[in-house]
């Protein structure tokens, strides 16, 4: 038993050891009692037999006579098929009997019974002796009656009982081990429940654990909760950090961009103009990445605790479309909006951000003077927002690729992008128990659908 082995197994093992000791002890005691009981029974019968024979002694014509009462022997036969011996003697003179089985016995005093085990014909024989005083010719003559019996029957009974006790002990042991395992597991179930509760949690669910726990687990819970708390705090810090970083990065970027635009107007040579354009593009790229990283962090944080607010996807689509209309106008892209009231449960801000990212992609990758359509409708218990464009489409890469972080299509050309847009949309949709579908828009362009369960 190393310190790392399972508590359950250790507990079971200990309980099984106790059960084993108890089993052996109980078996031994039962066996011992059985043997003693069998022996005492034999002793009583031997005594009774000896007494009956002694009662049958009488004095006749100056002689001590005995007519053996066979009932005494049949009584002994009742116990077993063991061989029976008897011996009746006055003093040292044998009256009748087959052998001096009481040879080693000191004759008991009148009215008393003596019991002993002797060895006769190489077998242990149990002998009971009684002494009775007979008046013979006015003189008291002590007569000793001894009745003996081999002990095979007794051993047989004792062994029998011992075997039965053994079987019972083994059964008890097996049962006890089983019960121990159950007990061990039951008492550790709380631990398992807590472990599962922790295991089921999402990667950023950092609420403290509130499970009822037995006293013994309290220190563990406290330690766990303090760890969670520290983790949450460090996570909050990194969020603040991202926000702060975004701010710090974007303000100077904005300065650079504005200066570059001014410089672009002033420089004359095509080379210099080209360089200025490159600067502006690089700035746009970094600012977009910063924005999406920030969005992604915010989404990841909010997505863990999506509230069950009623949100009309038609409204979400209207807001997102309005927000992107000026950007689309710059390329003379028409955003066609067709909606019906479609209420889902969730977080309006997150859903807006998901759609804005999808729509932003659509506008960004569409050539000028094309159209992007946004449709909101209900179908089969699901609400759906579909954004289709006439851009370059998704190409041949597997569609999964687009919803992975920092992955972009193969045919994005020179368009600025960080590859986080669809990842953000997917994270939001998944947090709302929905799915995102990417398909070709009838051969030209992309069709992105956010599918969410209706309220």
């Amino acid at each position: 038993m190393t310190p790392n082995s399972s508590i359950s197994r250790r507990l079971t093992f200990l309980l099984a050891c106790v059960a084993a000791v108890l089993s052996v002890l109980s078996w031994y005691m039962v066996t011992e009692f059985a043997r003693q009981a069998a022996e005492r029974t034999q002793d009583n019968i031997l005594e009774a037999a000896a007494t009956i024979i002694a009662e049958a002694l009488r004095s006749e014509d100056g002689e001590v006579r005995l007519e053996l009462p066979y009932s005494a022997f049949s009584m002994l036969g009742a116990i077993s098929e063991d061989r029976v011996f008897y011996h009746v003697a006055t003093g040292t003179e044998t009256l009748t009997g087959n052998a001096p089985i009481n040879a080693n016995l000191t004759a008991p005093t009148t009215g008393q019974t003596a019991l002993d085990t002797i060895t006769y014909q190489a077998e242990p024989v149990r002998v009971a002796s009684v002494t009775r005083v007979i008046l013979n010719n006015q003189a008291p003559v002590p007569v000793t009656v001894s009745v003996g019996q081999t002990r095979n029957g007794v051993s047989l009974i004792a062994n029998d009982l011992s075997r039965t006790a053994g079987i019972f002990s083994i059964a008890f042991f097996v049962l006890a081990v089983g019960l121990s395992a159950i007990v061990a597991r039951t008492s550790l179930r709380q631990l398992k429940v807590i472990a599962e509760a922790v295991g089921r949690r999402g990667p950023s669910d950092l609420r403290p654990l509130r499970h009822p726990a037995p006293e013994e687990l309290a220190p563990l819970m406290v330690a766990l909760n303090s760890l969670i708390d520290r983790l949450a705090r460090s996570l909050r810090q990194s969020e603040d950090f991202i926000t702060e970083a975004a701010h710090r990065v974007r303000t100077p970027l904005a300065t650079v961009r504005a200066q570059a635009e001014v410089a672009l107007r002033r420089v004359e040579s095509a080379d210099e103009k080209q360089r200025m354009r490159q600067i502006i593009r690089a700035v746009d790229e970094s600012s977009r990445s910063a924005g999406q990283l920030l969005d992604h962090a915010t989404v990841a944080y909010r997505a863990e605790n999506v509230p069950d607010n009623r949100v009309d996807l038609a409204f979400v689509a209207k807001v997102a479309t309005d927000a992107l209309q000026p950007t689309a106008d710059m390329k003379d892209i028409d955003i066609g909006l067709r909606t019906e009231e479609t209420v889902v449960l969730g977080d309006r801000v997150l859903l807006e951000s998901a759609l804005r990212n999808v729509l932003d992609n659509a506008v960004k990758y569409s050539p000028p003077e094309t159209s992007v359509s946004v449709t909101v409708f209900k179908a089969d218990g699901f609400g759906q927002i579909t954004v289709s464009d006439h851009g370059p489409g998704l190409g041949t890469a597997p569609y999964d690729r687009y919803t992975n972080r920092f992955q972009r299509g193969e045919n994005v050309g020179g368009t600025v992008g960080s590859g986080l847009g669809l990842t953000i949309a997917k994270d939001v949709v998944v947090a709302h128990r929905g799915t995102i579908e990417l398909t070709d828009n009838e051969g030209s362009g992309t069709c992105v659908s956010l599918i969410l369960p209706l309220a």
Partner: protein
Amino acid sequence: MRYLLVEDNQELAEAVVNRIELDGHAVDHAASLAQASDCLAAADYDLILLDVMLPDGDGRDFLATRRDVSETPVIVLTARSQISDRVGALDQGADDYITKPFDFAELEARCRAVLRRRGGAAKNEVKIGTATFDLTNGTLRVGDDIIELRNRELRLLEVFVRNAGQILSKTQLVDRMFSYDAEVTENAIEVYVGRLRKKLTRAGARIETVRGLGYRLHGS
């Protein structure tokens, strides 16, 4: 147009002022909410560009109190999360928001959209042939008829009007018209000039091609 820029970062403010002035607008700069209030008391503005985080308070609080006394449209400039800031800013009464760093073409498009939506801004009209062009909201009309211009045509016309009588090269037009993440060829300019030319015939104005140099608008 007259803008009020409320922004505490001096360098950014300077760059933004320079950039906006390039398009022929007037810009006043306020570095704090207090200065902004002074400016607003002294002059009328067509649009306020408001930073969110300012040394003497939160731009959004300013917005909330400002709403009661003024109708001047406000576009909030933010460097933070689009998700959370946006909701806050629009709920507090901003007309739109734009994330730093911003594309000035986009800023202009948003300004125009806001002004068109509000409809209350002072008119800034110029004559082009027989037509009237409102620079503030970007409508071109002949009598009561509106000549529909697409956005790029509109921007092109704006560039010509603001540089009245000058010859503009294709390169200059590319610089002024397009967002920089789009790959634009000079051929595209020819396409847009062609379209605008056609639409302007109704107004009796024309765009002259000055061989080897560029284009010039006649009639304004």
